């Protein structure tokens, strides 16, 4: 297959968006929306498979991507960007994630969303999302990346606010967009500075420039070192890292497939992708990388602690997503790009699986998400139960599941960096990472044991189908759906149909269990031959570094990597066992524990009060400032109006006649005034 086919990958979903848009208008066609959307994403997946060999085949000696140009996009003065796509193995990996997970989630959603009045609209949004996300991944320059970046932000906004009659959904959507905009300002400034320094914004030119710095070994000017710091802000916003993470937990207001696709598997990983993609640029600024690592690790720990005390299933997974993204940032921060992208890859499988199974639970319990109101559902929903179990194992990093391999790769890299460089900082980060792994195992299985184990009891939620349309009085009055609501309140939790809902989950579960074993060599090979490869590092430290690594160890008799694997396995199992004790076998013990640390639990349950602080420190004062400015403006206008009301009246008495024929009067006045001023000016000159 020709590389040119890559052009179709974003534009087929764009076409699908148009078709779905037509389906929105012509209601009889609405059933068509889902197949069109699924097929357009699937086509992207097939094309990616087809062009894979073209891209990976060319890596011998120096990883250079290939560019496919569509057309010239913006050109003003010396600034020039094309609508062009850059293809290298990293692009391919990301395309696999986006189109692969995208297809599965869209398929699931075709069942999940059935019966929603916004059915066609939903798939139109998803199509636009895939367009924007593939553009983001394929972009060959920073500005096109920015287009995709803001595009996915828009879809996130539209989909979080999908149930737009619900005030909480509207607020969450707004918050997501605005918080992302704050990060994007940093991103935009980063682009400006890049252009200012390098005169170009295409990846190839940036990589060449960075390579020159590396080759000459000269000092990098601080303004160039500043670029990664600015771009990083954008990444923190999109990937929900401290301090810009606050939007992601609220984003769970959207339909669950959206949470799985956008807010877990694909969009939120864009920040990690950006840094991995721009590895050569980030390597010019060691301080920036260090900051990325620190922020990633702190976010991982911070979000992990919040997840411990939440009761809303989707929110627990949201915080766990933030936490896992933190690992990925930690990975790119220590230049373990292959580990970071690998974790991105495996995380996409198991987190999508977890969200979708959570969606199934929600669907079955009519929108119920509160952990305290469900228990022992394993007999009602056996398939969902074991699918989620697979996802939980992977998230907890249980030995030999996907999450185990990828997380371990990152943590081993951090520990290795700490030991080789004798850096207390990185050793601390590695230890914190391990501690977070323990928290992860605990809160993951806390959820699973609570939902599926123990005595069977449940309370149905408020809604007909999961979190579908908040039924307004209007709808109920129409009578068409009110019967459905009645039924919903009495019927029992049920298993989801195999097609189209459980089948995609089985595929995801297989990925969550096996992607680690099967994928880690492939991933190392792919990333090693992409722009994210850390070439010069190896060149600099060379053999010596590899030598020392072999002597490094934490446990006697095994090398560093293996010892990290053993430690993290023990930690994961410990977390699971503790969770089983407190949340399955002896639940009262958990309550006693909670009451002993009442203050801490309240703090965590309220998410450290960050939202409240933001509101009081930023939002309120700004709004107040707006009020003040408006008052000032009003005052000026009022004064003016008074003045204007007075002047004509005064003038009117003297030049009454000319004001009569409105138009002529003003015309005459204008001419006379002009003439007088002109006369004055000319006289002044002589």
């Amino acid at each position, binding site marked *: 297959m020709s590389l040119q086919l890559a052009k179709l990958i974003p534009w087929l979903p764009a076409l699908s968006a148009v078709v779905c848009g037509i389906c929105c208008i012509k209601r009889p066609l609405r059933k068509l929306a889902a197949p069109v959307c699924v097929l357009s994403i699937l086509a992207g997946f097939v094309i990616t498979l087809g062009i894979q060999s073209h891209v990976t085949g060319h890596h011998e000696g120096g990883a250079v991507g290939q560019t496919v140009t569509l057309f010239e996009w913006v050109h003003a003065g010396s600034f020039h960007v094309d609508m062009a796509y850059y293809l290298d193995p990293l692009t391919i990996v990301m395309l696999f994630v986006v189109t692969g997970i995208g297809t599965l989630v869209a398929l699931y959603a075709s069942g999940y969303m059935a019966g929603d009045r916004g059915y066609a609209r939903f798939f139109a949004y998803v199509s636009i999302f895939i367009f924007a996300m593939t553009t983001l991944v394929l972009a060959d320059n920073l500005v096109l990346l920015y287009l995709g970046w803001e595009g996915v932000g828009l879809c996130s906004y539209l989909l979080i606010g999908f149930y737009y009659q619900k005030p909480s959904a509207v607020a969450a959507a707004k918050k997501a967009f605005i918080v992302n905009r704050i990060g994007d300002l940093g991103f935009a400034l980063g682009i400006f500075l890049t252009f200012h320094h390098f005169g170009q914004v295409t990846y190839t030119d940036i990589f060449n420039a960075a390579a020159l710095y590396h080759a000459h070994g000269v000092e990098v000017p601080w303004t160039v070192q500043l670029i990664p710091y600015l771009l990083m802000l954008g990444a923190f916003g999109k990937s929900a890292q401290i301090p810009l993470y606050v939007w992601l937990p609220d984003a769970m207001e959207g339909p669950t497939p959206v949470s799985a696709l956008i807010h877990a598997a694909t969009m939120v990983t864009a920040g990690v992708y950006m840094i991995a993609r721009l590895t050569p640029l980030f390597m010019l600024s060691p301080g920036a990388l260090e900051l990325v690592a620190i922020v990633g690790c702190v976010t991982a720990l911070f979000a992990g602690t919040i997840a411990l005390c939440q009761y809303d299933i989707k929110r627990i997974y949201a915080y766990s997503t933030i936490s896992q993204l933190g690992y990925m940032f930690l990975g790119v921060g220590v230049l373990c790009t292959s580990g970071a992208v690998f974790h991105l890859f495996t995380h996409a499988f198991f987190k999508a699986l977890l969200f979708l199974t959570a969606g199934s639970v929600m669907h079955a319990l009519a929108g119920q998400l509160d952990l305290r109101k469900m228990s022992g559902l394993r007999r009602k929903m056996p398939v969902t139960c074991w699918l989620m179990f697979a996802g939980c194992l992977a998230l907890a990093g249980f030995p030999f599941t996907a999450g185990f391999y990828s997380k371990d790769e990152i943590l081993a890299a951090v520990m290795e960096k700490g030991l080789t460089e004798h850096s207390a900082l990185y050793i601390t980060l590695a230890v914190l990472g391990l501690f977070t792994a323990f928290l992860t195992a605990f809160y993951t299985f806390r959820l699973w044991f609570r939902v599926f184990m123990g005595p069977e009891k449940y309370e149905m939620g408020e809604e007909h189908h999961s979190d579908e349309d908040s039924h307004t009085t209007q709808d109920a009055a129409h009578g068409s759906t009110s019967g459905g609501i009645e039924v919903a309140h009495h019927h029992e939790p049920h298993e989801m149909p195999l097609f189209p809902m459980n089948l995609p989950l089985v595929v995801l579960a297989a990925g969550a269990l096996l992607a680690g074993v099967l994928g880690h060599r492939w991933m190392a090979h792919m990333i090693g031959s992409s722009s994210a490869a850390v070439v010069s590092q190896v060149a600099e430290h060379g053999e010596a570094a590899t030598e020392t690594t072999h002597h490094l160890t934490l446990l006697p008799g095994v090398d560093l990597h293996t010892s990290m694997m053993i430690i993290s396995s023990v930690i994961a199992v410990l977390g699971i066992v503790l969770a089983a004790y407190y949340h399955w076998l002896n639940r009262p013990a958990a309550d006693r524990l909670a009451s002993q640390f009442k203050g801490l639990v309240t703090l965590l349950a309220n998410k450290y009060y960050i939202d409240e602080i933001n509101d009081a420190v930023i939002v309120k004062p700004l709004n107040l400032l707006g009020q003040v400015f408006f008052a000032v403006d009003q005052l000026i206008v009022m004064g003016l109006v008074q003045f204007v009301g007075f002047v004509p009246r005064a003038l009117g008495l003297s030049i009454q006649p000319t004001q009569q024929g409105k*138009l002529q009067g003003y015309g005459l006045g204008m001419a006379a005034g002009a003439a007088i001023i002109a006369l004055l000016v000319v006289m002044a000159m002589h």
Partner: protein
Amino acid sequence: MIETYSIPVLLLAPLLGGFGVAMLPKGNPGAVRTAAAFWSLLTFVVSVIAAVSFDWSKPADFQLTGMMPWISEFGLSFTYGVDSISLWLVLLSTFLTPIVIFGSFKALSPELQGRTKEFFVWLLLLESAMVGTFVARDILFFYLCFEFTLVPLYFLIGVFGSYQRLYAAKVFFLYTFTGSMLTFAALLYVAQVHAASHGGVWSFAIDDLYTAARSLDAPTQGWILAALLAGFAVKVPLFPVHTWLPLAHTEAPTAGSVILAGVLLKLGTYGLLRLAIPMCPEAVVSFAPTIGVLAVIGILYTALICWVQKDIKKLIAYSSVSHLGFCVLGMFALNLIGGGGSVMYMINHGLSTGALFLCVGMIYERFHTREMAQMSGLGRAMPVWATFMVFFCLASVGLPGLNGFVGEFLTLLGAFVSQDLLGWHYALAAGVGMIFGAIYILYMVGRVVMGPTKIPSLDHDAGDEHGHHTVKDLTAREIAVLVPLAIGCLVLGLYPKPILSTLDEPIRLLIDPARGALAARHGDETPRLTLVTDEHVASAPSFATGDVQ
């Protein structure tokens, strides 16, 4: 043939149309509307013909030129001609006018039905004046048209506006009129300088005045610039002389608002670009940082004001002030990137803000209120309207892929890279405006389009004879009015090249004197950060070595 006559025809068609409509018998609003629509469409066709006959390979040359002598002894004549900048703005005017006319078919309230004729006549005359301003090649013609735009708009606001219409019309008229008197005085003074240096032979040709004004010393140029700013900055409007605009917008009928935001504000920015910057290069270089600061203050100050508005139309009116701040900022970066972005911004703002005013007008025609507190969740009741509204809002906040982004990005980038004049801190501060922009637009969308459905009560509405609240979504006519604008927003966002590629050369001509003055001022001392400036960027690979050395 086409070369000689297309512009006179372009000027005369709406004028004749106006008179033709005025001649129609009274009491037949239908015929009046059709005739007005016909003439405006005809004008649009003529402008397209003009655009086709324009030689796009020489975008900086004035083409389709001609002259109508007036009083030749005094050098008075109407000279006209267009370069690409003028032509694009002419196209914007002739494109928006038919849209506005179609959009106003049902806009007049019953008590004003009797004055339908007057309404459309003013719109057509306004079009003629707008086109005239953009094609004028001598300042008398320019000034005549520039001022004449006030008259139709005065009546559109004063007669067809809402409650405070008379106040608003007066404020609008006197505010802008006072400012432009100073502008006129400055232009006359420059003409006098020219006459003095040419042995008493008067000329009002813009090119002659460029030469005359540039020969003056810096302080005098400063006074001229100040006087030009008095007229143009009020028109733009630049902070702090923007206060007339929200009032005028809020009180104007939809058609007036659309034309006001879409085209008339651009008369100000066009005047700055066409007259102020080339005439007083020395002064512009000295003033640019100050003007940049005012632009940035305007962006942030009005954006925050938008956030606390209760009236949708006022919110959009204030947002215009904020947006035009970007336009001015890019222009006074005095480089090709900022300049190109600035002209793009003029066109894009005309499309997206014009469309937003139309959308708000459609709401007002239905509910007779624009208070956000009165309505909520219209997305369910009017899904088609909601789709358009959200789309244009996104274009307005500069979502990449839609038109607003191109201008916004380029103006900010232009400001950022002009280290010798503005600099990164301008881009940073104005960039915060992007965040505020998202805040106030999404706040409005969240209130009006989303949320639980709440339809304003229509009790006082005479048309509601059935007694129950049925809300009609957009009619075919209304959709037809919005679709061209939506297509424009999308196409210019994804493929702005047809416009952008024609802007470099004319902008270079306009800003070159100022750049020259700037270079002279800096002497040989190259600013430390400017490794790559606009002029010598062509050889990309050389930069890094230069940097490394």
